[in-house]
């Protein structure tokens, strides 16, 4: 993103905090106004500065887009939705103070989550203390679901380990003579990247596909030729990369240099980035990647989201924006069904409803287990004819699954 628009976004968000803040204050002054015509205030703390500011701003746009879409349709339960967004500076202490303030002092009606696992866990604890429903857009690591939270819901199709579920099913369902026999795994030492690769590894191993290489590399790895040499010499049928971006690209080029041709190659994150095709010399055909969100996904609300988002922000939404929007959709569904949105009794109703129902969102229908872990899997995209298309699951596919992968 060019610097200019970034500072513009920062100024915009600062202005937003100011205006929303004053609006909330004036609401306090009125005291015992008619509750049913008051706006529903949604308290959010986001990392608008610091380490997570890029994704933080993305999630913010998602929330703003959601509020606008809801308000343009007359609001929730006939009340307008108002966002109150605080900046936690990517700081775990700040995020706790922010939610204490939002719930205790500002008396917001609902709260939704911040960005990144590191901030989700402490803020979820605050929400839990106040018995508030806590739907969050980003906290895919398994630690989030091991804290015993009862009010937490992760508003995305799947946690990292389940991203590849559709692919695992597809591979294991191949006829025996086509099914790969050996697999190589190379994953960055990072809970998310490694989680995706190891989730698939577990399922394929259980299905009888032998692991011949299992490499973990630190995030600061600069040379991938050694890993590539191991994979190439093992001649694994399929290759799975738990990658972010540059590591995936460097590994693919190193493998091309060694002349390794797998029957199937799947990488997390890297293949869905806009620079990917050019970086590996457009030899992309057949490369797979799980994705939590696609602008082309045929879910009902997605078309509306993409359209309205483009009108509001002048660009297409990415995964961060979609996660924010999805969180809003989940909360809205619960509020509509329970018929209330305020602190106290109502929150329990919202939580109970979400535990026993399915919500249609821009990333597909979502449902959760008791820990708030989503029960779905990511869509699988594949590079076909210089474009990345959804190939799995079959009911939303844009193109047919290509297997074995053409040479790169």
């Amino acid at each position: 993103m060019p610097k200019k628009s970034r500072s513009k976004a920062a100024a915009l968000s600062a202005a937003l905090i100011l205006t929303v803040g004053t609006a909330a204050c004036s609401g306090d002054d009125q005291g015992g106004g008619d509750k049913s015509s008051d706006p529903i205030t949604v308290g959010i703390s986001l990392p608008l500065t610091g380490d997570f500011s890029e994704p933080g701003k993305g999630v913010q746009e998602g929330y703003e887009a959601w509020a606008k879409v809801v308000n343009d349709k007359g609001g929730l339960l006939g009340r307008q939705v108002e966002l109150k967004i605080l900046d936690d500076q990517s700081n775990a202490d700040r995020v706790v103070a922010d939610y204490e303030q939002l719930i205790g002092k500002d008396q917001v009606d609902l709260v939704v989550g911040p960005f990144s696992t590191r901030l989700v866990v402490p803020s979820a604890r605050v929400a839990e203390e106040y018995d508030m429903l806590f739907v969050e857009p980003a906290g895919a690591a398994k630690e989030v679901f091991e804290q015993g939270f009862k009010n937490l819901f992760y508003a995305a199709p799947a946690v990292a380990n389940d991203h590849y579920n559709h692919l695992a099913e597809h591979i294991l369902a191949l006829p025996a003579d086509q099914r790969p026999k050996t697999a190589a795994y190379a994953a960055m030492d990072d809970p998310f990247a490694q989680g995706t690769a190891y989730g698939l590894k577990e399922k394929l191993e259980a299905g009888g596909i032998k692991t011949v290489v299992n490499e973990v590399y630190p995030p600061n790895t600069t040379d991938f030729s050694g890993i590539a040499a191991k994979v190439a010499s093992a001649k694994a049928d399929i290759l799975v990369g738990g990658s972010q971006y540059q590591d995936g690209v460097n590994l693919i080029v190193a493998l091309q240099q060694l002349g390794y041709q797998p029957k199937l190659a799947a990488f997390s994150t890297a293949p869905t980035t806009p620079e990917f095709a050019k970086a590996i010399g457009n030899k992309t055909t057949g490369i797979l990647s799980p994705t939590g969100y696609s602008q082309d996904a045929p879910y009902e609300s997605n078309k509306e989201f993409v359209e309205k988002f483009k009108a509001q922000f002048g660009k297409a939404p990415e995964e961060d924006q979609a996660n924010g929007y999805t969180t809003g959709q989940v909360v809205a569904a619960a509020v509509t069904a329970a018929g209330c949105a305020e602190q106290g009794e109502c929150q329990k109703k919202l939580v109970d409803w979400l535990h026993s129902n399915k919500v249609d969102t821009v990333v597909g229908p979502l449902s959760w287990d008791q820990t708030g872990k989503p029960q779905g899997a990511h869509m699988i995209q594949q590079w076909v004819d210089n474009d990345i298309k959804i190939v799995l699951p079959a009911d939303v596919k844009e193109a047919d699954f290509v297997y074995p992968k053409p040479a790169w």
Partner: protein
Amino acid sequence: MLVFQSIILGLLLGGLYALLASGLTLYFGIMRVVMIAHSAFLILAAYLAWWIHDRAGIDPLLSMVVTVPLFFAAGVVLQRLLLTRLRPATLTMMSVLLTFAIALAIEGLLGYAFTGTQRRIQLGYSSASFELFGARIAVVKLIAFVLAAVALSGLYVVMKRTRFGWALRATIQHRDAARLLGIDTERVAGYGFGLGLATAAVGGTALSLDTTIYPSLHWHWIGPLMAIIVVGGLGSVPGAAAAAMVLGMAQSLLQIPMGTTWAQTVFYVALFATLAFRPQGFFGGRLAQRF
């Protein structure tokens, strides 16, 4: 088979390390300067190679026509304007702070000019390779190796065969004595620093051929490069080259049994071993004792 392939890869990697580390050891030799910004300049050169290739479609190797003189001049200016102003008594320590600041400035400017998006030069021969006795050699890695060999031999010839080289080595060995012999050590040091930065221009170009670059990448390089010059003996270019080859090879071979994470620690194990048992370095150079 895998072992042979790894030896080839280790050789190529060691050559690249040698090139990238040569400037770093030179600065220390000439001025007792710990140049944290060296790897930032490498990335800067890599960005310039990428940018020139991206804009004009010129082969990144040709970008050196511009970047090498540019970096040489920048090195002279840097030394004359900033580093000479540091007090000799605290030079080594303060140079860490100063060059740290320069590294941050370069990283920030790269982010500002080219954004944080990760870049990679895509050439027709990026993934091309040929076979040699069953091992595959990537063309870009070979080019980087040849570049390293040419640059280091050039550096060697300059140091050993030219008057400037003699003056430079005299300055490295004993600055006061060199000055007594009538060598303008200040000017020589300036040019020496320029020479060091010129190697960064060559090294950055070599790096850009086969790496995905981004502004903060230099932090991943400075650690191993520092380890190489200490193991090689601070101030000794041949020592750094030898250490680079040994460590590059060790990293590549250890990766087979130990995996990537542990293979990387070879640099730091070597660093500790050197400091503990032979602080002057294993491959020549007597300067470390004063460090």
